[in-house]
């Protein structure tokens, strides 16, 4: 797995590279600003770009815009965006062009190295990784939305796990239930939300997020 890092804080940039290299990830280049990222992407054609949201010059959402631009320049490039705080609008901006190979995590998740690297690999392989914090923010905002109110607590847990990008097996493992019951819950969730069931994990996340965003 070949990775490009874009992060303006030198300490974090090096720390990230250190962590990833120690896990056997091939960090091919690192950049300190959006232009550097775009240059590194076109030069190295990596599998995945790890991008900080706030970068020069304005330190607002340059990272998101650079990530979107990089994906347009190199279709199929997976992007994992790191942010010091969660902002659901960033997540929806990222998902505008589809959710294949998109991740959005809080920066401190990097400290949980094995989970972080798992999420990174999932994104690089075309999956999705959305921070539980983002998901719960979305849920908190939509909690009053009546359609979600029809879900059982377990179904809601399963929906959050889906939104994070977990596959059925991972969901089953997290809640100590069988794959079969996960299937049952998901079918029930889709029925209650009026979505047609679909097997692909990223499309499930997109459907969930799109549903949450649209209502």
């Amino acid at each position, binding site marked *: 797995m070949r990775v490009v890092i874009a992060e303006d*804080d030198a*300490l*974090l940039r090096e*720390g*990230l590279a*250190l*962590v990833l290299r*120690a*896990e056997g990830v091939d960090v091919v280049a690192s950049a300190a600003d959006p232009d550097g990222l775009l240059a590194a992407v076109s030069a190295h054609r990596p599998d995945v770009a790890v991008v900080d949201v*706030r970068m020069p010059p304005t*330190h607002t959402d340059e990272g998101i815009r650079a990530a979107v631009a990089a994906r347009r320049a190199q279709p199929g490039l997976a992007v994992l965006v790191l942010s*010091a705080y969660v902002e659901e609008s960033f997540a929806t901006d990222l998902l505008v062009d589809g959710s294949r190979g998109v991740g959005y995590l809080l*920066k*401190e998740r*990097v*400290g*949980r*190295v*094995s989970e*972080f690297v798992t999420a990174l690999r999932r994104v690089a392989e075309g999956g999705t990784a959305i921070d539980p914090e983002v998901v719960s923010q979305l849920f908190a905002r939509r909690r009053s939305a009546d359609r979600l109110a029809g879900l059982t607590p377990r179904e809601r847990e399963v929906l959050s796990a889906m939104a994070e990008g977990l596959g059925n097996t991972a969901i089953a493992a997290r809640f100590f239930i069988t794959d079969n019951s996960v299937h049952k819950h998901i079918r029930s969730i889709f029925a209650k939300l009026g979505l047609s069931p679909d097997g692909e994990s990223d499309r499930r996340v997109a459907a969930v997020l799109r549903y949450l965003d649209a209502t």
Partner: protein
Amino acid sequence: MSPPRSRSGAVATVFRRALTAAGRLFLGLVTGMLALVTAAATLAVTASCLIGVGWFLVRPWLRVIRAVADLERRRLARFGEPVPSPYGPLPTGIAEGFHDPSIRRDLVWLVSHGVAGSLVCLIGFQFPVNAVREATAPLWWTLLPPEEAGALNGLVQITSWREAFIVAATSPVWLALWLVVSPRIADFQARWGRRMLRPHPGVDLSARVSQLTASRAAALDAHAAELRRIERALHDGAQNRLVAVAMLTGAARQVVRRDPEQADPILERVQDAAEQALAELRTVVRSILPPVLENRGLAGALSALGADCAVPCTVTVDVTVRCAAGVESTAYFVVAEALTNVSRHSGANESAVTVRRTGDVLRIEVRDDGRGGAAAGDGSGLTGIVRRVEAHDGTARIDSPVGGPTLVEVELPCG
């Protein structure tokens, strides 16, 4: 005024009014003479503008005119309703000055009060003076040289006892004029003065409203900018350092299982990052409300700033009563920013900070003998000064001709 209950009460009221009127008219005469002198000097300042030097005097001179007018406002307020002061900050340009109605009205008042006002007050004050003087003529006419001993302002000479007593006999006429006419004259003069000195009904009030609106908007802007600054400082500083702590701790845990030796340098970086986070938090806290201000007051805090300045700096603080915390921290910020500019850009050999509280105004001056040319531009520290000062409804002036010297002058209301 409630009707007096008895005849003696009515008489007492008449005398009290007459006595007050004498005082009012005397003080009116004083401010009238002052206005006359000021009006004459205003002509001189205007004339000196023709040869150039006068332009430097215009602003200080406008302050003098305002002070004279305010004195008259205080006199009027002493004997009646308060007269609100119409002044905004002094205009900065000539065109603005021409359009400032308060300046026009002040000048008209200056001339009218100096000439007509003085005359009216003089006449009104003449009655009590004459009443007393004529009544006492028999007592003093022999003591004066013959050509000095006169009545009716010297129009009639007193040459004999008989004439002295005739003069004394005219005293009740003056007394009557004093009792009846003087209060009316005083009232008339006061009505007139009030009309000229109160804020112009439409224009001045709207100017004040727009000034308050602007200062309120500036306060909100400065507040938002301040929050943004704090957010940015926390995010780019402490938060990133703590993220690094989390990240590097993860890396260290990863490594320690395989090779404990390798974990040590990583842990050292973790420690560095944690220490940096603490240092940055301290900086942010200090920028919000400097603890030194809390502990040692404005004088101590500013002395510390002066001592830290790269350019030798004399700090004089003459503030006996502490100001509101917001005002003090703004004053501290102003001096800190100004001294940072002095050390970074001025090339000065020495600098001086003077802070003085006069009544409800805190005046701050920071001067240096450097190369000048400082201006409030985008993102400069001086812009920050202007913003923060305006948020407190204060005024900031930066006088920095190319070649120096530089003077930053700030006035903050601290009532």
